[in-house]
């Protein structure tokens, strides 16, 4: 049952990932990307990472994708005609992506297989455990990421501001 669920979710993720690349309109790309994110969030639930699944949906589907949709709406990019790369470049892109995939799979095949987990701790992805680890072992990176957010916020506002002259 879980294996079939894994196959279905992987199929949905890969198919909608391909549709992100190949769909004509940017709005459809955003919508397909949201489908991919939901499939990945379901994978997180399958992997006992419930807290990350919730955060993933809130951050990606709720914040980042809305930002993308806002920008597409403001730039009025919802046009069917859009410049495309020449066929030769597209062909080269597909070849390059395929070669990268083959390289990654080949690197995976040369590794020793990790045996299936025996004494699994299914409580690892719950918010209590993650919060303990985050605020005990990773307190400094957590604080630094707040500085990063402040810098990103100021930077985004500064860049997107209209010039006076």
């Amino acid at each position, binding site marked *: 049952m*879980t*294996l079939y669920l*894994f196959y279905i979710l992987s199929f949905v993720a*890969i198919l909608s*990932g*391909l549709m992100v*690349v190949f769909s004509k309109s*940017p709005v459809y790309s955003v919508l397909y*990307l949201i489908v*991919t*994110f939901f499939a*990945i969030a379901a*994978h*997180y639930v399958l*992997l006992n*990472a419930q*807290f*990350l699944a919730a*955060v*993933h949906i809130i*951050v990606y589907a709720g*914040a*980042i994708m809305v*930002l993308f949709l806002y*920008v*597409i709406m403001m*730039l009025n*990019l919802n046009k069917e005609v*859009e*410049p495309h*790369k020449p066929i030769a*470049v597209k062909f080269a*892109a597909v070849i*390059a*992506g395929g070669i*990268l*995939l083959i390289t*990654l799979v080949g690197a*995976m095949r040369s590794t020793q*297989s*990790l045996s*299936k*987990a025996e004494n*699994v*701790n*299914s409580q*690892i*992805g719950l918010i209590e*455990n993650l919060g303990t680890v985050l605020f005990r*072992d*990773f307190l400094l*990176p957590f604080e630094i*990421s707040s500085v*990063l*957010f402040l810098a*990103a916020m100021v*930077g*985004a506002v500064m*860049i*997107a501001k209209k010039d006076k002259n």
Partner: protein
Amino acid sequence: MSAIQVVPIHFYILLSAVLFSIGVLGVLFRRNAIIILMCIELMLNAVNLLLVAFSSYMSDAAGQVFVFFIMAVAAAEVAVGLAILMMIFRNTKSTDIEFLNKLKH
């Protein structure tokens, strides 16, 4: 029953490799800068999925905390990237990356 006991870790590595390759393919394939940003998000998500898979299989919570940080960095990256994109659009009236080859000429 969770996926850890049923699905081998190789399946997750394979899925992440495919998603990452789709992201790379999209960056090389398209000219629209917004779609390229989306494909970068796809690549980040492939890496996140692999980190969560390894974290669950090894019963180590540190991997999931890393994913948390990657999400924070991705959010900041998208905010700044889209702001840059807005400014490019204001100056060139297009999101086509082929216009941005001033360094080449």
